[in-house]
């Protein structure tokens, strides 16, 4: 695998959407390529940032109870 191939597959790697063969090929490339390894860490960090920024809004307890009353 070369750097352009790695870049092309990086998002799918971070999203755990590659098959086992692709994962092994990409991991092998990352071990020998500091630039791509840095890029991978950045993309994974960015995905975590988006998740943690957006998943802090929990449904209010009163709303859950209201729904429970309505639905059950």
């Amino acid at each position, binding site marked *: 695998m070369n750097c352009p191939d790695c870049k092309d597959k990086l998002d799918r790697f971070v999203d755990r959407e590659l098959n086992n063969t692709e994962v092994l090929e990409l991991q092998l490339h990352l071990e020998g390529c500091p630039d791509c390894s840095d*890029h991978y860490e950045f993309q994974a960090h960015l995905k975590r940032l988006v998740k943690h920024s957006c998943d802090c809004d929990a449904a209010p307890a009163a709303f859950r109870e209201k729904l429970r009353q309505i639905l059950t």
Partner: protein
Amino acid sequence: MAESPARLAFAEEALTHLHTLYRGALRLTRDPDQAQDLVQEAYLRALRYQHSYQTGTNMKAWLFAIMRNLFWDRFKGTRKDDVSLDDVGDFVLFEKLRDEGARPEADVLDRIAASEVVSAVETLPPLHREVVLLVDVEGFSYKDAAQALGVPIGTVMSRLHRARQQLQKSLYDYAVESGIVRGSTNGATPQ
């Protein structure tokens, strides 16, 4: 409303996905009251169409599909209301920061406030916003996201790719405006 044990069990299982639905509704409507209305309506519809849910399949994706379809039907009119993304080209934040000498690049991410990330996500057009919500926030696989959105996996991937590029561009612009990075020196981006 419910009487039978099966219906009760269905409602209880559906409620385990409340946070996902509420967060999705909140990001789509950008209004807590509208989000609650949307989620409540989605649950009522889910119960009404309980027979169409296939046991053993992904209930979270099924519920999200009901919720987002209601959003498009009732809160936003038709899908034509969705506006397309700006063409930001092949914007890769990592490469942009590296070109500008910001090392380590990830330090820039640590200095971006969560509220700015939420704002950047909410600025995305809804069709692109919802795929980011499913894949990045809720951890859906592309396949489950495709099921929830009623589109092919390839569409999920292309929307996600474009949404992420726009998101990275928004975060970069914020980083420049707030002085986290100095911005490019070619005159293209600095504020």
